[in-house]
């Protein structure tokens, strides 16, 4: 072991790794954390939006279903129009996780049913139903259209009840 002079010590100090920017790694970590958190929040919000939209339709859809079955034609039509407006609100198409229901498609199906009910209430001609069927998301073909329209007509119970009562 040799004795070290102050000059030797000064030389060894200069070889120690210099920390030129001590703030650099914490700053990078902060930025990374910010980026990961914001991307996670954005994707979660995107996935939740169609679910919340569907939930928002529920009370109006429940009222519309009762009004269509038993209510006055005016109430039924007004509520079906509300359901249609809520179901057709413009949104960017969202991706749904595997195993999760596709709420966008479900809302389109709600809109299709509302359109069919409105057509029934308005006593629309067959060509209207054919046009609705052609653009429908629900399983509707020219072969089952008649059955579908009959089913929608049967859901309006107040007409049949009044007829049966006579």
């Amino acid at each position, binding site marked *: 072991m040799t004795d070290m002079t102050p000059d030797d010590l000064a030389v060894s100090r200069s070889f120690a790794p210099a920390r030129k920017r001590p703030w650099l790694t914490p700053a990078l970590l902060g930025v990374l954390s910010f*980026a990961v958190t914001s991307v996670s929040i954005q994707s979660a919000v995107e996935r939740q939006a169609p679910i919340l939209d569907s939930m928002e339709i529920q*009370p109006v859809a429940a009222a519309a279903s*009762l009004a269509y*079955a*038993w*209510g006055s034609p005016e*109430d039924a039509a007004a509520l079906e129009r509300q359901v249609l407006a809520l179901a057709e609100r413009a949104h960017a198409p969202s991706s749904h996780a595997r195993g999760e229901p596709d709420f966008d498609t479900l809302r389109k199906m709600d809109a299709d049913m509302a359109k069919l009910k409105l057509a029934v209430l308005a006593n629309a001609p067959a060509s209207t139903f054919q046009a609705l069927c052609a653009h429908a998301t629900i399983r509707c073909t020219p072969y089952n259209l008649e059955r579908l329209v009959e089913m929608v007509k049967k859901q309006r119970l*107040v007409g049949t009840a*009044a007829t049966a009562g006579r």
Partner: protein
Amino acid sequence: MDGKPSFEHIFRLTGFHLGAAGAGFFVAAWIFAPKPRMPAAVSPRVAQILELRTQARAAASATTSLAPTTVVNAGVGTAGAPGAAHAASAVAGPPAAALARATELCTALAWPACDPDSVRAMGKLP
């Protein structure tokens, strides 16, 4: 300063890094936190229809499932007799009140069929 970091040095460095990560998380959460959605206000008529649905359901479920119990509770004692269910719904408190309220709402809405049978049938809708 020698090359070997001290405990305090490591402690401080870790603290800075954890603090920076936490700060990034909180700033992002504060900026991008989803805003609460304000659902469209339900019109008074829709609220009335929804109440009618609830009351009709209460009336319908009472007449289908609670009728025998209601007869016993009401002290009528003629559960097996013809028309016992009707007697029960007339005597029992809550189901009769639900039916009365549903009928009242239906009449207020000026719907075409507001007789008790129709109101009970409304309650059986899915």
